[in-house]
């Protein structure tokens, strides 16, 4: 909560919306929860009934985007409106990397969070969206701490480790979480003089590196995404230090989505309770089949600069 950029309205009481504190604040409220990808209003209801803290409205889950190929874009506003109409929890939607007009449209639609996402086909191969220009908060993916800090410098109010969406394989999510949090730990221990080299290595602004050194944590909530498919995967991400989890294809590409969704919610809350994890992991039917990293042709995580 360090800066107060981008204040939009003010009247009596110094009433302001769209402040950094208000935008990061919603991410704080989503902590310890599960954000689920949904493609229909029916799925949104199932997600809410299972205890999701938010839904990500999209036309195709990443597993299908992977299979279909072609250009993946922002969802049809009608589809997003349909999901907003049936749920009482926050609704997120994805814009292409660098596609600030998709961001403007999603803000106009009143979505609660915009995900500038590598799962969609990038619109700009150099620049991400200037997220300070928006009142709606943004979440961005990151594979390492440098990428996370560049996104925060552009105004992202939440970071999610990218993992590899649509694979049902948790290995990349673990790699990215360990990389981000491992470097946070190293910077916390670093000598003041070493911070200059850290900023250079990470290609990240020095003040943000110094802030991590002083506080011992990332400036915004860190969630985990990309390849989570089971309650154990969610608890693994939480034990590694994620503050919430995104589950995309993992729920609605499994045999029996509703009980799996509920089990993942319980596992995320009770991530340190192995007895409870054993209980909620029982009899959920088959998870999504998933794919190994070597048989995977497109790496979404490589998108983003």
């Amino acid at each position, binding site marked *: 909560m360090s800066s107060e950029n981008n204040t939009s309205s003010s009247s009596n009481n110094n009433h302001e919306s*769209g402040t950094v504190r208000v935008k990061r604040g919603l991410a704080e409220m989503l902590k310890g929860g599960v954000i689920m990808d949904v493609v229909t209003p029916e799925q949104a209801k199932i997600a809410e009934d299972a205890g999701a803290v938010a839904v990500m409205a999209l036309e195709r889950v990443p597993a299908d985007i992977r299979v279909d190929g072609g250009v993946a874009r922002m969802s049809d506003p009608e589809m997003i409106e349909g999901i907003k109409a049936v749920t*009482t929890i926050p609704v997120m939607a994805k814009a292409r990397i660098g596609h600030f007009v998709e961001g403007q449209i999603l803000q106009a639609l009143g979505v609660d969070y915009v995900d500038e996402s590598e799962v969609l086909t990038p619109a700009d191969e150099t620049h991400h969206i200037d997220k300070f220009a928006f009142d709606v908060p943004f979440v961005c993916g990151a594979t390492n701490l440098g990428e996370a800090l560049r996104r925060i410098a552009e105004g992202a109010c939440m970071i999610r480790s990218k993992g590899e969406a649509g694979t049902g394989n948790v290995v990349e999510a673990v790699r990215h979480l360990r990389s981000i949090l491992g470097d946070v730990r190293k910077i916390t221990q670093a000598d003041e003089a070493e911070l200059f080299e850290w900023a250079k290595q990470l290609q990240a602004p020095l003040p943000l590196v110094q802030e991590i050194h002083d506080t011992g944590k990332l400036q915004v909530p860190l969630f985990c995404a990309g390849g989570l498919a089971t309650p154990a995967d969610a608890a693994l991400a939480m034990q590694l230090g994620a503050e919430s989890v995104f589950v995309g294809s993992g729920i609605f590409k499994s045999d029996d989505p509703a009980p799996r969704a509920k089990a993942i919610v319980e596992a995320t809350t009770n991530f340190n309770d192995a007895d409870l994890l054993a209980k909620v992991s029982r009899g959920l039917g088959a998870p999504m089949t998933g794919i190994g990293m070597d048989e995977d042709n497109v790496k979404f995580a490589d998108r983003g600069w």
Partner: protein
Amino acid sequence: MVAPIVGVLALQGAFAKHVEAIDRLGHRASEVRNAEQLAQVDSLIIPGGESTTISKLLDSSGLRPLLAERLSAGMPAFGTCAGMILLATEVLDGRDDQESFGVIDLAVRRNGYGRQINSFEANLVVDDIGQQPLRAVFIRAPRVEAVGDGVEVLASVEDVPVLCRQGQILVSSFHPELIDDDRLHQLFLAGLG
């Protein structure tokens, strides 16, 4: 005598920020996720988060009847945002299956200020904590629609109550845990006697 423990319901939401605030004030805070943990605390903070999610987890954890019993036996509680919804007697625009504990006589409308784009911060003057304004952060906040006779309104924004108290129950529609100003936590702790 052992120092009283302030519980923070940690099923989902901004519970860690409340624990930090209680720690800063030199009191003992403890996260509550199950029956054993609830039995060890003397008061409870219910944080902001998604009220539907917290409500589902109250059921799956078996905490709901135990917490209802403690609250009706007079356990002090401080509910912020979703916590206010869970403590109020009436919830408007909630889910049909959403139950609240009904220990403060308020009707609150879920997301009554609108979606995230309408979230805001504003200055509040609360007589009980001094004249220095408090910066209140409202995130998809509940809106108080009706206040019962026994409820004190401690602060309002544009004539809508945002901070209320009834006996040992304190509620705010905003998030005192998101600012570096612990006066409302201090007020709650002072009321514990």
